[in-house]
């Protein structure tokens, strides 16, 4: 009953809206297009077309006529490339590696970022500006250069950290087979913690002070206010940083590529993206395209899935 009512009202209201807009002097279609085209033209050319092209390539195979020395041609191959990807053990080990990396690094980084943001939001703390800037500074450092800097701190010949630990009787091998994944994770954590902190901190600053007053009157302490009031309110920005971190993890390339220059424990197929590049360098573009598509689909499923999951939990 109410449903049909609202629907009826919507039908009545709908033709009214555009008329009102036109009388208010809203822009013409041509003007709107002039605002949109400068972005959408390159967006289509350099985003959508490559995505489509990768999809198309991923369904092709190279065949040869008449044995090894015949001329090669590409033809439709169905899901051949995808079947190859799914049977590739290097692909699965790179996914497993990156999965382990993400499951550990992302929560640790975001938890530290959240604690830092909450600390910055309390009135207790002096020298906030200095702390905020030093935490955010790594964001301005390119991943390649961050990895170069840390690789010097990891290298046994140059590192003051290894020296220092040596005096304490510890001899860690940051580039050893078991540790190198976590040394890479450390570079990512160093780069992005401050950035994530700043997004959460900005969200905290946008909460009006009155929100806390009732809780204070009820005798809530700073911890209760932080966990029961602040964290739920900034949940959307925590979701946002998580999604960006998931995307970033699956894209990992520069940091391990730099550490590979000094560690034999990082293979050329260490991460999915390194694998895709290695396959493309071997001139198997169709296979590389299929790998890229699979990485993009996994990214999409994980980040979308995470958004859906968290928004359901939050009762939205």
């Amino acid at each position, binding site marked *: 009953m109410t449903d049909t009512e609202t629907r009826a009202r919507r039908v009545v209201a709908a033709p009214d809206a555009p008329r009102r807009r036109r009388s208010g002097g809203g822009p013409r*279609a041509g003007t709107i297009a002039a*605002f949109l085209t400068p972005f959408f033209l*390159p967006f289509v050319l350099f985003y959508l077309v490559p995505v489509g092209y990768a999809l198309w390539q991923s369904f092709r195979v190279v065949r040869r006529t008449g044995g090894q020395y015949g001329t090669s041609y590409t033809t439709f191959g169905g899901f051949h490339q995808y079947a190859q990807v799914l049977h590739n053990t290097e692909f699965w080990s790179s996914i497993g590696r990156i999965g382990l990396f993400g499951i550990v690094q992302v929560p640790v980084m975001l938890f530290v970022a959240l604690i830092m943001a909450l600390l910055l939001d309390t009135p207790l703390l002096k020298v906030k500006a200095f702390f905020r800037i030093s935490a955010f500074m790594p964001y301005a450092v390119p991943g390649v250069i961050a990895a170069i800097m840390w690789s010097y701190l990891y290298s046994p010949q140059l590192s003051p950290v290894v020296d220092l630990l040596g005096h304490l009787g510890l001899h860690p091998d940051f580039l050893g087979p078991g540790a190198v994944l976590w040394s890479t994770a450390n570079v990512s954590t160093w780069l992005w913690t401050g950035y994530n902190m700043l997004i959460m901190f900005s969200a905290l600053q946008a909460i009006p002070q009155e929100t806390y007053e009732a809780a204070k009157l009820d005798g809530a302490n700073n911890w209760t206010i932080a966990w029961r009031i602040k964290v739920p309110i900034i949940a959307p920005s925590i979701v946002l940083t998580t999604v960006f971190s998931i995307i970033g993890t699956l894209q990992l390339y520069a940091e391990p590529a730099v550490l590979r220059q000094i560690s034999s424990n990082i293979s050329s197929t260490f991460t999915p993206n390194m694998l895709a590049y290695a396959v493309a360098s071997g001139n198997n573009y169709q296979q590389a395209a299929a790998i890229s598509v699979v990485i993009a689909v996994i990214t999409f499923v994980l980040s979308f899935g995470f958004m859906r999951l968290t928004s359901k939990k939050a009762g939205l």
Partner: protein
Amino acid sequence: MALMLLLTIYFLLPVYFLIVAATKPQGDLASTNGLAFSHFNLFSNLHTLFSRSDGIFLKWALNSVIYAVVGAGVGTLISALCGYALAKFQFRGKEFLFSVVLGGVLVPTTALALPLFLLFSSTGMVNTYWAVFLPSIVSPFGVYLARIFASAAVPEELLESARLDGAGEFRTFFSVASRLMAPSLVTIFLFQFVAIWNNFFLPMVMLQKESLFPVTLGLFEWNGQTARAPLLQESVITGSLVSIVPVIIVFILLQRFWRTGLAAGSLK
């Protein structure tokens, strides 16, 4: 407080190490304590850095500046126009366009680089400035931010009164809306600037010609050669310092702007 101190040391340590190492002669790198200054050799290191291979480092630095400043400038302008239109104009298919842009945020840029290389190589654009510059101007995240900022910062009544005064839509945008959006535009510019400045995969895929490299790719190549040419190590260190310090300074100087923008963006 102790936790804060510890974290501050963690964040500053690599940069401090880099500053110390950049002032040392190559011979002192391995033989002296990494956290203490020894012979002050910074100027000689800088001279070596900038004169190596006919001054290629300066070329890389200039390339990075061109890619990042022009790319982020154009990118911010087109993102702002598009985000503003998506926030303030009513038209059919608006939500559909916005969700396509949002989907673009989720596409890994490294997954784009390989097909882009194939497309560009068939048009002969590989190994040119355009191959890195053109894809860099597209920032779906910039459009997303611009839309949020425009709906938060530009009041509807102001646009109505500008229209009543007979101002065209572009004039309204440039003389009214863009001023109100200014702090957020700085934020979009800085985010995109950093993304392009830090980009490594795209130039690596697109460029073979050393003279077109950005600084990240150049230093990566040098770093890979240090095993064969150990003397390059000091230039990699000094070059790393030279390439991060200006960006860090710009960030600190502009922080009032991007913090306002970020705070506005986090409302929704």
